[in-house]
């Protein structure tokens, strides 16, 4: 459990959380924000695995994608709520 919480925290404060949020704020389309966040999650996991699929932990990949999708969606919601353009 602690391991999962740590992984979630690490991703929220890393690329999926921060870059995912920033990318989500660049669009008004929810699906696009979520997609960009998810892609960042995949890329981040690959970066930390040294671009070798054999080193990718499934749980870490799933958590990174979920955090990225959530962050991207929140970013889009912020754009919709807080900007008129």
């Amino acid at each position, binding site marked *: 459990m*602690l*391991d999962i919480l*740590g*992984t*979630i925290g*690490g991703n929220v404060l890393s690329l999926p959380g921060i870059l995912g949020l920033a990318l989500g704020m660049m669009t008004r389309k929810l699906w696009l924000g979520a997609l960009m966040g998810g892609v960042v999650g995949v890329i*981040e996991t690959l970066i930390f695995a040294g671009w070798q699929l054999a*080193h990718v932990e499934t749980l870490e990949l799933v958590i990174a994608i979920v955090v990225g999708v959530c962050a991207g969606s929140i970013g889009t919601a912020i754009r919709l*709520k807080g900007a008129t353009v």
Partner: protein
Amino acid sequence: MAEDNRGRIRRIWDWFWSPIPVLSVGFTLIAGFLAGILFWGGFHWTLELTNTEEFCTSCHSMETNLGEYRQTIHYNNHSGVRAICSDCHVPHEWNHKIKAKVMAVKDVYHELVGTIGTSEKYEAHRLSMASAVWKKMKESDSRECRNCHNFAYMDFTIQEARAASEHQRAIDNNMTCIDCHQGIAHSLPPDYLEEYQKVTEELSAQAAEPLEKHAAAGDDIRSFLQNSTD
């Protein structure tokens, strides 16, 4: 003038999301950029403060392992290089580091409830604490050891004969630092070999291909040595 019936929280919420016509885009961007630098700098600086030896050993329950560590070569040695707590227990990579920091919250809890508050309690938990660290190190191919040590950087000709032959054996058998160097910084509990065996068996059972995926460095050296002998 119409009376505002909104509650305080609602008014703050509406104010937060309403456009501010007095600020230009440039001003907002520059102010946001500066605020971002200040926030991130402060956050990172605070995080680094939690990596200091003073911070790690400020808890009463850390006194025992601090005393043990001070008797080891990682504290005092001929080269004058020191590895402090965070060098071995906190990963350098951002994602792994944040994960370790989040997981370290449990240490604060155990300090507060006094789980290892006395030497008797400490000894009672020594094996389980050591086992948890061994498991983490075995899983990560001793990642934190390798921030300083690497088979590729070793000159076996200037190592003691036994060390050189053991390191060669480690490369040949895809072993990792913690396979031999348990107790390098803290005293070993009784029955530690049986416990370490249990850890390795558990990890082997979990992995479909037991730890071979971590052997990239060893593979490089082995292929180099094979080519040299050919």
